[in-house]
């Protein structure tokens, strides 16, 4: 085991952790600010220039608040639940390539933390652990709102996981690999080689499923404020509540990154060969990744203020009776098309 390799890995892990945290903070700020603009308000503008330091102020406040554990709660599980939700949410980013590669000390470093062979399945697996944290939180709080929110949410997540998985299968049909790097390599070239143009139906199914998986409007039935108070985290306070908040935003960031990776060529800059440009190419690729991701993060906020919430039966109908059959049809179509073109 060489020390340098180990240090490089450690640095990459830390950088990704820090970047995720900073993006989460930025996203929290952006969410409040953009929401405000969409409603003709100003939003947070007192702390720091243009209110930029607001997330930090919020963070400090979370720290200084009293942490309450309700007397009826199941204490060990109550403490375990935020961790089970937050850790997988942070871990998903480990396999997403966020840039081409840079060369330092004569060693080529891929801009990705762990190049797992089964990358896409790894992400789906972590998503399914997240379900678990929500059920734990709902059950351990010993509150009616929490329990109902937890149950609703888990049923919603598993329903949309299927549609998401099936939409991904049609991408894998094209790429022929579960590695995210191969999926990106499959989309290199001009604009039209991106999967969003090759698989528009899969893209729509995936995008809808992602909104349901991240519990965002129009699918935020788990924390429907008007009926369930706060859903599964009703009883949580101070820092533990902040962790649920963090997990939600971390999930959104991963979802945006995954959408970019699967359908928009990942870090690919159209019409440009990044590797021939050396360091500049790497920087451009990272910038392109960030830009594309920022668009999808903005879309999350935009959609939030555009669509009303679904009813629960509508949600289930959409998941099982529309998205699931559509995704299956899409697989048949893709498979059939690939077979026909191969025969020629």
């Amino acid at each position, binding site marked *: 085991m060489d020390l340098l390799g180990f240090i490089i890995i450690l640095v990459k892990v830390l950088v990704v952790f820090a970047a995720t945290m900073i993006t989460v903070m930025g996203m929290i700020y952006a969410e409040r600010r953009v929401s405000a603009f969409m409603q003709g308000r100003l939003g947070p503008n007192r702390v720091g220039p243009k209110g930029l330091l607001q997330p930090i102020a919020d963070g400090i406040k979370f720290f200084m608040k009293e942490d309450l554990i309700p007397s009826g709660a199941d204490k060990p599980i109550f403490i375990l639940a935020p961790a089970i939700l937050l850790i997988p949410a942070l871990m998903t980013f480990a396999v997403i390539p966020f840039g081409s590669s840079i060369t330092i000390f004569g060693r080529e470093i891929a801009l990705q933390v762990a190049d797992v062979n*089964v990358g896409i*399945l790894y992400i789906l*697996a972590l998503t399914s652990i997240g379900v*678990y944290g929500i059920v734990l939180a709902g059950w351990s709080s010993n509150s009616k709102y929490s329990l109902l929110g937890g149950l609703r949410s888990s049923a919603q997540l*598993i329903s949309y996981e299927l549609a998401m998985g099936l939409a991904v299968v049609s991408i894998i049909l094209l790429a022929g690999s579960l590695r995210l790097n191969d999926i990106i390599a499959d989309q290199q070239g001009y604009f039209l080689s991106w999967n969003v143009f090759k698989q528009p139906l899969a893209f729509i199914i995936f995008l809808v499923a992602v909104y349901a998986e991240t519990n965002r409007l129009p699918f935020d039935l788990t924390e429907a404020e008007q009926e369930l108070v706060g859903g599964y985290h009703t009883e949580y306070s101070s820092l533990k509540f902040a962790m649920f908040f963090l997990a939600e935003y971390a999930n959104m960031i991963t979802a945006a990154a995954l959408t970019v990776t699967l359908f928009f060529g990942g870090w690919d800059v159209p019409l440009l060969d990044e590797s021939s440009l050396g360091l500049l190419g790497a920087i451009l690729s990272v910038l392109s990744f960030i830009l594309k991701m920022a668009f999808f993060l903005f879309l999350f906020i935009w959609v939030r203020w555009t669509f009303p919430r679904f009813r629960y039966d509508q949600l289930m109908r959409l998941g099982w009776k529309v998205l699931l059959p559509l995704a299956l049809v899409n697989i048949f179509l893709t498979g059939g098309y690939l077979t026909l073109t191969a025969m020629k």
Partner: protein
Amino acid sequence: MVDIVFWIIVGITIGSAFMVVQSKSLLYSAYALLFTFVGVTGLYVFLWADFLAVVQIVVYVGGILVLIIFGIMLTNKITSVNISHASVQKGIGGVVVLGIIGVLGYMVFITPWNQLAATEPEQTSATIGRLLMMDYLLPFEVASLLLLGALIAATTLSRKEN
């Protein structure tokens, strides 16, 4: 380094499995099962079976465990009935367990294990796909029939009779 990680994972697996058996509350058992499954995933990784490792999480944690927990939670008036699975007849049970451990241990030591050279497989998912499509086609198609049967039977059983 690899050894330390290995023993940590083994510890998690066996420790949580012990919790599953030992815990007085059914829900606690179900929660401890999560860590057992995650530990088994780690063991799969040590066997270079990365595809199986993630499938273990997708199917067992994402599907079966959620089903178990729903099952426990849906049971009516669960608080009034004392849900526990306290052990009875500990003496006889202990003797049986010791006997089984003895037999299994003996088997482990006398079996001439077939040791394979440790080479990392190239792409496990592609190999599995090829094997499913070529060599094990019939079991694969029969599996779909089995799944169909399970689906119909399970939904029929859970449907309310009018």
